[in-house]
């Protein structure tokens, strides 16, 4: 079966991977000239945190997300199983209880355990939650590795090609549309939820795992980018807006304040990159797999791109190859 995947973001690359692994002849079409130029997943946190996400997501996100850690670990090198740590300053301790009430598979940790897990945060926090089974990855490294792996499997990449008009025909049997927010032209119920993030570098503080800092209004997280020592991703805002290309001063202040509240050494960090883009989301913030206009759409991964892409890719491949089986009879 020949399959054309449109979009080389995390959804597209995961679909291409699963289909190629199951023997399909896959090509990937991407409108931007370079792999990471335009995909919103390049700004992802890269947390594989299905149980933490229950704080705001519905149960299927945790269930489907649970397969993500093994999936990524089997395919790319840049995955770390260090768990995630959720902390709150003493004043916002009530937020920790609220977080605990809505999530599962964690242990409550006190000051001593926090100091053991993250020596640089010793004496700074005295209560937290450890989600020991969770993991994180470096999103940009993971996307590059996945693309390289696909090329080695014989998957063709065609960059600078607009996939809107691509259709099943002489050259392909099936089109899988993974264009993210750009697919709004055919999925009108899709909306954008803006996110803003920073990449900072500091050698003055070392973190081993993603740390979520709870706050009643501005909950944020810091994820160590293991590939390069001293590099941290600080994210991310959630704004109901389809604006893709601008980080506001206020958001930057909030992100930096969170980093500073976690450890004052972040005040001296170098700002390496700032990024803004929109997450594609359906009204229920749940992902969808649907047939429309003769295409299979995989979209609405919202803030769970790396977490949900493996499960969605599996389902997309089932649907694609199931359809082939249907035609064969």
């Amino acid at each position, binding site marked *: 079966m020949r399959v054309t995947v449109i979009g080389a973001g995390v959804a597209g690359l995961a679909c291409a991977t699963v289909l190629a692994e199951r023997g399909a002849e896959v090509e990937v079409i991407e409108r931007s000239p370079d792999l990471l130029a335009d995909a919103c997943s390049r700004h992802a946190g890269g947390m594989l945190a299905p149980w933490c996400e229950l704080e*705001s*997501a*519905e149960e299927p996100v945790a269930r489907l997300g649970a397969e993500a850690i093994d999936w990524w670990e089997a395919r790319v090198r840049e995955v770390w199983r260090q768990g995630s740590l959720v902390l709150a300053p003493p004043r916002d301790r009530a937020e920790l209880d*609220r977080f605990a*009430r*809505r999530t599962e598979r964690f242990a409550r940790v006190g000051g001593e355990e926090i100091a053991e897990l993250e020596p640089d945060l010793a004496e700074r926090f005295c209560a937290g939650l450890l989600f020991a089974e969770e993991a994180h990855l470096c999103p940009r490294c993971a996307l590059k590795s996945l693309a390289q792996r696909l090329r080695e499997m014989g998957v063709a990449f065609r960059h600078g090609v607009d996939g809107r008009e691509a259709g099943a025909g002489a050259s392909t049997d099936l089109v899988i549309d993974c264009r993210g927010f750009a697919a709004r032209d055919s999925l009108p119920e899709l*909306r*954008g939820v*803006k996110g803003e993030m920073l990449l900072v570098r500091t050698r003055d503080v070392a973190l081993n795992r993603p740390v979520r800092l709870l706050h*009643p*209004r501005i909950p944020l997280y810091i994820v160590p980018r293991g590939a390069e020592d001293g590099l941290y991703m600080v994210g991310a805002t959630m*704004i*109901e*807006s*389809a*604006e893709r290309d*601008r980080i*506001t001063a*206020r958001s930057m202040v909030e992100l930096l304040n969170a980093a500073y509240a976690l450890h004052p050494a972040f005040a001296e960090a170098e700002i390496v990159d700032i990024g803004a883009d929109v997450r594609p*989301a359906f*009204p*229920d*913030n*749940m992902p969808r797999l649907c047939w429309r206009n003769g295409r299979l759409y995989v979209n609405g991964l919202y803030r769970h791109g790396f977490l949900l892409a493996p499960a969605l890719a599996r389902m997309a491949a089932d649907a694609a190859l199931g359809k082939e089986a249907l035609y064969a009879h």
Partner: protein
Amino acid sequence: MNFYGVDLNCRLMLGTAQYPSPAVMAEAVKASGTEVVTVSLRRESGAGRAGQDFWSLIRALGVRVLPNTAGCRSAKEAVTTARMAREVFNTKWIKLEVIGEEDTLQPDVFGLVEAARILAEDGFEVFPYTTEDLVVAERLVEAGCRVLMPWGAPIGSAQGLNNAFGLRALRAHFPEVPLVVDAGIGVPSHAARAMEMGYDAVLINTAIAKAGDPVAMAAAFARAVEAGRLAWEAGPMEPREMASPSTPVIGRADLA
């Protein structure tokens, strides 16, 4: 209940922020029976009209929209946001918020009165988010406000009615002005208490949006508001220092 010439039956108003998803928000709105929702514009607007998608979802709820100026920190910023809201939602209504303090998010009452005056003169129908301060309330009414929205406690704090005496005094002082408790309500009993004090309505956001089951909590608030209002209309008895048996003791059979 009448806000600026509009008759409303439901005395519960809902905010639309912080829900797990727009779909859950829509269900909570339905379960609450509300006729008015507020929506913020400041941050969502971006450089142009980038918040359109969310605003379309709000319009699709089929209830009256009360846009707000949440996040504005000066009168000027609030006035600009209000004018944009009028275009986006095609309404003269504006819930005016001018935040004066970062930690408590309490209103900057000086900026509030200034912005209320400008907007009222510009034809807006202003719903000011204020404290329970009587003098500020008078200034707001002078500025042209025909509805007042005093806080119960700081926004999102779930502390209930922090100054019940002040809120009662405000009610007594403005018998004719519709009064809505706007912030700080955490559980339905807080809302019932405000209604029992004679408040015309309550506005709830965080207490519903951040509940374990927002849709069920919306229904709970709807019932509490209805019960509180009914109690107010029924005339609650005054508290007494002494016990008073509900069954008379005189005339009791003497079996000794």
